């Protein structure tokens, strides 16, 4: 209880003005001058916090796997690398390290040096239909980054456009846009994305795009709210009024004067949502409306487990490998995100 009591005595209100920020009062290193003191503080908070360092290491590991996917699991030449190679068509999954019998893809160059064997094996086993799990998990990393980054960038963009218009003009424009946002927010995200994805699939074709478009269509709302609030707090500052007095056009005021001062917190928070979008996309794939069967995607691989619910004790590897990849990927982003939220929370400023 001692700790809580001490905290209650922290300087508050007027007293807080005398409180010295241990970072700001220190002589500034060159990096702080380069990227700005606020960015420097966030960066420093991230590097010093073991939780976020663990998260960064995990993310870097996945970046490594994604970049070197063709080396780690070479695809068939002249074929879409996102199609998982399969070893026949038998329904029963095969255990890890079992031999690759038919249509073996090219051997990675490191395989012989490490194991001294000439044949490629199913490192992580196969799913029903003989899809190679190892290949799917490795190339699924690329899918995860692609899906996560594209969706995040798109929803943030939509959020910025709608939110800044809403916040800048206010009045009836704001009211209408916010009611539309309300209505989009009514639907549970996953259910709405599932619905739209089922609608779009026959129209834009199978693949990862229907589910991505659906997730973007129902994902922008919270960013709109954030940006709107920030724009409203900035739009009456003196320099904006000055720009207006000079007769600068609205669009230019928003893009050049308001947004640079308003979007930063949203961008940082949003960048950490990559993990949760990858998770939702995997969920859609698991339900069968995301990536199609045989596409290198973790959720899609996990959906094979649904055929073997009563034998999962034997075929554990269908759940284990793609599952662990997905969990760690999301965990990495969440760890960093959690640390960023702490660093950015002004109430916790000054605490180590």
């Amino acid at each position, binding site marked *: 209880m001692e700790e809580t009591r001490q905290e209650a005595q922290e300087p508050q209100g007027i007293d807080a003005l005398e409180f010295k920020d241990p970072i700001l009062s220190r002589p500034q290193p060159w990096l702080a001058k380069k990227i700005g003191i606020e960015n420097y503080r966030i960066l420093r908070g991230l590097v010093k916090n073991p939780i976020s360092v663990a998260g960064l290491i995990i993310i870097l590991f996945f970046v490594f796997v994604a970049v070197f996917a063709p080396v780690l699991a070479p695809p068939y030449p002249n074929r879409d690398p996102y199609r998982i190679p399969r070893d026949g068509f038998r329904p029963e999954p095969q255990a890890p390290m079992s031999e690759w019998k038919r249509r073996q893809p090219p051997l990675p160059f490191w395989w012989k040096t490490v194991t001294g064997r000439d044949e490629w094996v199913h490192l992580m086993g196969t799913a029903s239909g003989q899809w190679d799990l190892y290949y799917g998990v490795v190339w699924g990393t690329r899918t995860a980054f692609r899906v996560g980054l594209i969706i995040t960038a798109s929803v943030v963009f939509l959020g910025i456009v709608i939110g800044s218009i809403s916040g800048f003009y206010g009045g009836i424009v704001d009211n209408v846009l916010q009611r539309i946002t309300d209505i989009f927010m009514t639907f549970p995200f996953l259910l709405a994305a599932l619905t739209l994805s089922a609608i779009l699939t026959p129209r834009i074709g199978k693949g990862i795009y229907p589910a991505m478009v659906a997730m973007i269509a129902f994902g922008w709302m919270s960013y709109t709210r954030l940006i709107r609030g920030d724009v409203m707090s900035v739009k009456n500052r003196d320099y904006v009024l000055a720009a207006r007095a000079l007769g600068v056009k609205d669009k230019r005021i928003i893009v050049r004067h308001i947004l640079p001062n308003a979007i930063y917190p949203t961008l940082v928070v949003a960048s950490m949502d990559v993990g949760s979008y990858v998770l939702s996309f995997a969920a859609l794939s698991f339900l069968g409306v995301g990536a199609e069967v045989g596409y290198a995607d973790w959720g899609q691989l996990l959906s094979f487990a649904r055929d073997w619910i009563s034998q999962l004790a034997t075929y554990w590897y269908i759940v284990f490998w793609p599952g662990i990849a997905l*969990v760690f990927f999301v*965990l990495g982003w969440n760890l960093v995100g959690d640390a960023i939220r702490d660093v950015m929370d002004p109430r916790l400023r000054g605490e180590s």
Partner: protein
Amino acid sequence: MGQYIIRRLLMLPLILFGVTLLIFGMLQFLSPEERAALYIKDIPKNPQALEGVIKRYGLDQPIYVQYWNWMVGVQDPNTGERTGGVLRGDLGYSRTSSVPVAELIRIRFPATLELALWSVLPIVLVGVWLGVLAAMHHNGLFDQIARVFSIIGWSFPTFVFGLLVLMIFYAKLGWFPPGRLSDWAAAVVRTPEFHNYTKLITVDALLNGRVDIFWDALRHLILPIITLSYLSWALLLRVTRSSMLEVLRQNYVTTARAKGLKESVVIRRHVLRNALIPVATITGFVVIGLLNGVVITETVFNYPGIGSAVAKAALQLDVVTVLGMTLFTGTIIVVMNLVVDVMYAVIDPRVRLH
């Protein structure tokens, strides 16, 4: 107070109107013959008959006419019979289940409701309890463990978690099977001697005095409940914790302590009352989140609720069914949001002033 509630009530039809507009907008992606499933069961294959159906139900009319038809239904000029009409509770025909969508919802919803009702209590009680503990031991060992737990909880996809518990407790140990009832119990439930008072099997079993069936239903519910709960625990823990910490910093808490009150009294009387206000709102969201979570959870556990029905229909691209169920869920959520807002105003007088 009364004014606030009336204002919110007046907003309700407006929001519901918006919800129907959005659903209707998504329906417009479908071709007219696909949309015919909104009114008739068997869509004719022959082009002439199809043309007749499209004409009869105005599927080639301007959008506002179609919206009106969709809302109130279309009257047959010969028989005077009305078909379709969302306001009449007719959501069209489900191609994949061969029953009207409304009927499908009526069959499947009790199972989902049962699962949700059983989940809410453990979620809220355990989540709040963990949050209070974490706040009281701020930066202590328990707080750190709770923090790690909640981050991992957030990162663990429902379906991976569900598959893992199935792997352990069903495939390996055989304790908790998927589905809703064992075959023998399902057979008993179908007999005329078993009265379905509420359609919630656990409740009905007790009302019929069949403890064995109650136990069987519960055995099937335990894994889905745990799967639905752990994610919400992570959320509730964080909200309760930060809300508690915020209140603990207030001057009146210091005053209460300075008066020499016992710590437990300070927490219960002074801190918890205010700290739980945001938690009450989050609980509303948790219930809404349950409706989201059931889609995955029911699919993983093969539990026959509306969530698994939606997933199955979506997989077979039966859009009329999916949209009908989404409309149903959306309506529930709008009403529940209203209830949460009103409750919020009742709990926290500060809200009414805005």
